[in-house]
């Protein structure tokens, strides 16, 4: 299976290790991964802030960059949701672009979604290097992928040496919301503090956060206010288990 990695603009700069881990995980489950390095950004910030023209420009570029890909997989739920939910809106009734856009929409997946629905990955035999308590934050844009919390939690429950602890208000937003976090600072702060409090209450070592924006927001709050847990992407845990197996 040939997969092109869509690493995302935030992931490229702020969490390259998540990108590397994603590649490792996909290769472990039998994919050949390439990285079309012309990729930049899907246009989500432009779209969310009411600049559909600018978003459309970047969307056209994305479609072109991944034109020859069989599958496009991203570790970011929000960027995947941008493509799947909003590209059809941006290109609706456009005779020139609509077909290409819908083709791109149909082949773009988020990592957990891809592992579960397409690869039907069996993680039996994978175990973390040492025992860890793990909890799960339901990143908001997973809703846009029509997924609930079950696929990710099933993986965590089946992962060796990982003890899953449920997070109180697991599906409550972390308070990032892009420009919301800098424009409505008071409200964003109250929401992220709530998330850190709930995380601390689980006494988990790791909180799974499958989106760069959320991870930066929660991580930044953890560092400022103190937390017992660290936010990590599920790809990083799986990659650690894969490395562990090979040793």
């Amino acid at each position: 299976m040939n997969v092109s990695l869509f690493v995302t603009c935030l992931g490229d700069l702020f969490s390259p290790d998540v990108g590397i881990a994603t590649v490792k995980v996909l290769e472990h489950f039998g994919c050949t991964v390439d990285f079309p390095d012309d990729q930049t950004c899907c246009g989500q910030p432009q779209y969310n802030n009411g600049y559909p023209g600018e978003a459309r420009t970047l969307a056209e570029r994305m479609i072109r960059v991944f034109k020859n890909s069989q599958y496009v997989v991203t570790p970011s739920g929000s960027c995947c949701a941008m493509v799947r939910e909003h590209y059809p809106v941006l290109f609706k009734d456009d005779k020139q672009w609509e077909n290409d856009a819908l083709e791109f929409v149909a082949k773009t997946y988020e990592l957990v979604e891809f592992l579960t629905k397409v690869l039907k990955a069996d993680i039996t035999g994978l175990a973390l290097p040492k025992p860890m308590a793990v909890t799960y934050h339901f990143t908001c844009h997973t809703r846009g992928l029509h997924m609930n919390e079950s696929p990710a939690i099933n993986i965590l429950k089946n992962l060796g040496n990982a003890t899953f602890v449920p997070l109180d208000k697991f599906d409550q937003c972390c308070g990032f919301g892009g420009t919301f976090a800098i424009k409505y600072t008071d409200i964003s702060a109250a929401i992220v503090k709530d998330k850190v409090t709930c995380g601390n209450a689980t006494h988990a070592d790791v909180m799974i956060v499958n989106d760069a924006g959320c991870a930066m927001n929660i991580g930044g709050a953890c560092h400022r206010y103190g937390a017992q847990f660290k936010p990590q992407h599920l790809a990083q845990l799986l990659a650690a288990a894969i490395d562990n197996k090979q040793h």
Partner: protein
Amino acid sequence: MPTTLDNLPPSAGATGSDKVHAADLPRGMALPVFNPDFKAAAHLSSADDLLHAAHENSIVKKWYDRRNLLATDLPDGDGLRALAGNIKAHTLDHLDYYLEQFEANVIKNGGHVHFASNAEEANQLVVQIAKQTNSKLVVKSKSMVSEETELNHALIAAGIETVETDLGELIVQVANDHPSHLVYPIIHMRAKQIGEVFAKFFKVPFTDDPQVLAEMARVYLRERFNTADMGVSGVNFGVAETGSIVICTNEGNGRMCTSRMRVHVALMGMEKLIPRFQDLPVFLKLLARSAAGQPLTQYSNIITGPKRAGEFDGPEEFHVVIMDNGRSRILASDYRDTLRCIRCGACLNACPIYRKVGGHTYGSIYPGPIGALITPLFNGLEHHEHLPQATSLCGACYEACPVKINIPEMLIAMKGDLKLVGKVPWYEKWVFRMWTIGLKSKFAYVLGQKMQRFAMRHLFKSKDGWVTKLPGPAKGWTEVRDFPQPPKKSFRELWKERRQNSV
């Protein structure tokens, strides 16, 4: 003169040049605004731990009850929501037809129908009916339309005593406060505050025991029900086919206000119709589950006209006042889907912003995600610029909505409309344009990455790999949390190395 059907726009499926943009919507304040400064209010409420605790114990719990109930209690909760949304969309597409059908059937059943184009007309109509029927005491069950029009003030100014009978609304009335939730008006109040309000109103010693307080209200309201001349209610659903109205309450005050009095006046937003009686179960199955995480409200009253010959119970006169107040303009706009709303409040319960700031922060009677859309639509976007922006676009409201209103998509569209009313600073537009240009070429993008990395690793104030002070418009972030420094190498640089190492 009240509006007739002739004045409603032929808006069934209006497209293209018929469409009304948010910027064109009426400037008049159709909704009363009791708090115009969203940001100042949010600053206080987002730090209010007591408010947050009150929300935890009530609406947050109802959110999870709702989630569980819809997943376990109905064979296809999601499918039912889609059906409800489609029924509402169809009704809105043919609203003129269904309003005519509803009116004809109410009249056939012995009732009266009045059309009010705005709040003032609605109030005049109700006061007129009260005077014509010699009604001195009015009891009210919950009506959001009456909050829009501030009906109580109009009745009292005309010398007609008016008493709210929903316990929460009674407390709000007596405390001279405002409701903070569509369904639970006093979610922002603690037992102690209610005790103080009742001690003053009933002239009794203070108690904060909820049982005692409820009993005080019950005894008081019982006497009011016994002597009232007229009952004013809202309408949850109007059934066009039969001319019936449906009222759902947990307290039974809906039934008390509409059966024992000589006159019953029902206030209905014009969008509250459903086509047929057989469509009603779809909505009854969803309303209480969405609002309260319970299968049904304690009382669901279906009223089809006044007391008929030979019947014991019921009012002698039944009036429906159908309210426009800007709804017909919203129907012709890109935001017509907001008229599907059945006022369940599920989106409020779902919303991380509502949970932290509470209903009063939104400034008018419709808070939460739906309020963030319809308050600007009723009153003018330039008066409520923060409402569509104070969202993290998490989508929980869309997940919550029993009629599948795509609130996030419309919030985004409304943010775009802000430019049309001059509420976007010139530099913001410039920033987004420059940013997009920078993302159009790989060279500019990589250069931008390197500049960002350099600034964050070497220029901005930082500690242990985290930036503690960001400059300019981003400073809001570091006021309340740290920002990670980019690692030394980007993904594309690591990928290149990985490639080279494996060759």
